């Protein structure tokens, strides 16, 4: 059924090409172009690295940048640590209805807007919030405590928001591991730790990598959670981009920041793929 391929092929290629070129490729080339120019006179621009130089000479900028990167990596690691036992429990310890129920329960927060989720954490963590009240009621603290607007709050929010994107690939990959293989490992004299280290984790590696990549990208590019849970001092790099674009109207510097953020995420994803010997296509599908 592959005759007359040419005309159908071109008809199918057209929407793909329009979508990708107009909405993804050209905008990013434009962004790079703007990042690499400076205004020399009204409506006069010249090629320049000024914006990038400004980034490296202004400590606030590159510190925010580094801080965002480190916190994102930390959030990814934490998400993995928390999600792995849960995913394993769902995939291997449960059967039938209870399994699908707990798995669906994991998915619920994903279907709810990030804004609502973050709002929930604000109600829990703020000075007049549920946790503060609970602590006072239990007599653990004497007055209201502000749990919001610090790095820990940001971290909780980021991990919470990312959880699902770690659980789903992990459950999928762990489900594909036959119980027989774990039983065989025990049968041949393995114990829990050796089985984990030599059987389960190597098998789960593709899921771990794809989960980590997605979580890392989402965390790095997040705006809402650090902004709402971290308050004024959240110092998240996307906020800098927003400030340059919307508040200061300095599109040149904002674009340079955007390019830097893209470079950083590509670099870390590339490193992750290299270390785990995977490809982007294989981790995404």
């Amino acid at each position, binding site marked *: 059924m592959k005759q007359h391929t040419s005309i159908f092929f071109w008809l199918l290629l057209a929407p793909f090409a329009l979508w990708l070129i107009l909405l*993804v490729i050209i905008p990013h080339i434009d962004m790079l172009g703007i990042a690499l120019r400076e205004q020399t006179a009204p409506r006069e621009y010249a090629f320049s690295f000024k914006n990038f130089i400004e980034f490296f000479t202004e400590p606030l900028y590159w510190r925010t940048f580094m801080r965002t990167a480190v916190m994102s990596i930390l959030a990814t690691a934490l998400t993995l640590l928390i999600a792995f036992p849960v995913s394993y429990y769902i995939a291997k310890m449960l059967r039938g209805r209870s399994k699908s129920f707990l798995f669906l329960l994991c998915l619920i927060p994903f279907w709810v807007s990030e804004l609502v989720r973050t709002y929930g954490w604000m109600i829990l963590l703020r000075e007049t919030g549920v946790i503060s009240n609970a602590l006072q009621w239990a007599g653990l603290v004497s007055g209201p405590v502000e749990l919001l607007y610090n790095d820990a709050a940001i971290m909780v929010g980021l991990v919470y928001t990312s959880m699902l994107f770690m659980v789903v690939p992990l459950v999928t990959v762990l489900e594909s591991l036959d119980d027989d293989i774990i039983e065989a490992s025990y049968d041949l004299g393995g114990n829990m730790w050796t089985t984990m280290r030599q059987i389960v984790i190597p098998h789960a590696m593709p899921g771990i990598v794809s989960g980590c990549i997605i979580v890392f990208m989402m965390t790095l590019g997040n705006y809402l959670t650090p902004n709402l849970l971290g308050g004024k001092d959240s110092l998240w790099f996307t906020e800098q981009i927003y400030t340059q674009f919307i508040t200061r109207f300095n599109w040149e510097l904002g674009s340079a920041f955007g390019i830097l953020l893209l470079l950083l995420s590509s670099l870390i994803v590339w490193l992750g793929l290299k270390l785990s010997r995977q490809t982007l296509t294989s981790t995404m599908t």
Partner: protein
Amino acid sequence: MIPSISQPPSLRWTYRAYILLFYIFLIAPLAVVATFAFNDSLFPSLPWNGFTLDWFTGDTPQRLGVFSDSAMLESVGVSAFIAFFVTALSIFVATTNAFLFERYDFRFKEFLYMLMLLPLVIPGVILGISILISSNSMANYMDEVFNLEVEFLRPGLVLVILGQFAFITTIATMVIGARLRKMDRSLEEAAYNLGASKTAVLRTITLPYLRPAMVGAAIVAFLMSFENFNTTLMLTSSDSPLTITMFDRLREGSTPELNAVSLLLMIVSGVLALISVFVQKKEDS
């Protein structure tokens, strides 16, 4: 490890306790948001002053409920309008993309597939600003050269739709492509062999086979569009969609009306999620 391999009871109970804690962590923020929607107080926080439906139905300026808040309702309309177009566009392009990548071999296919995945790994804020830059320079060009003011290239509904369409298409393509890949080609050959024309094969066999995936992808696309914040933030203007309106309210200091809106959002998303799960279940049978 697995149910067939016995573990000491202490370990088993620790594991279960951990899972329980995890689900409390998962549910707590959503539960408090929902609960405080019914608190008879001006603030979404403790103490609990009794049950009220004012935050849904109230119509006094002091206690404006969701159903009387015209600004809020209008933003729901805006969001629905955006989500409708994003869904229609992205399902169309995703379907053609799926056929392109699953049914044809061409040069640079691997590379183009990787490009297709890119919008998923570009942070939403950056996708937003790059489209903003591109459309803005296009608008400026039209203005300077043809002296035309092209309204839709300035921030507003069209740009929001395009920005969301840019990355939602990738997700929809992955869903529909996976289904097409699973399809047994001999179904189409059988239909063709039984006398169907190629368009009849497409209409009676291939598209019905893809329908569950298309419905599932449409639900996901609609929800992702409805709940999107990062990309939308950069491209929106005066007609703000729901998430932007809620964000602004949240920063001003919220009333439990926000909880009421959130609860309604949760219910709608939950119902849609259940439908999509149901559709997928049917697909597997």
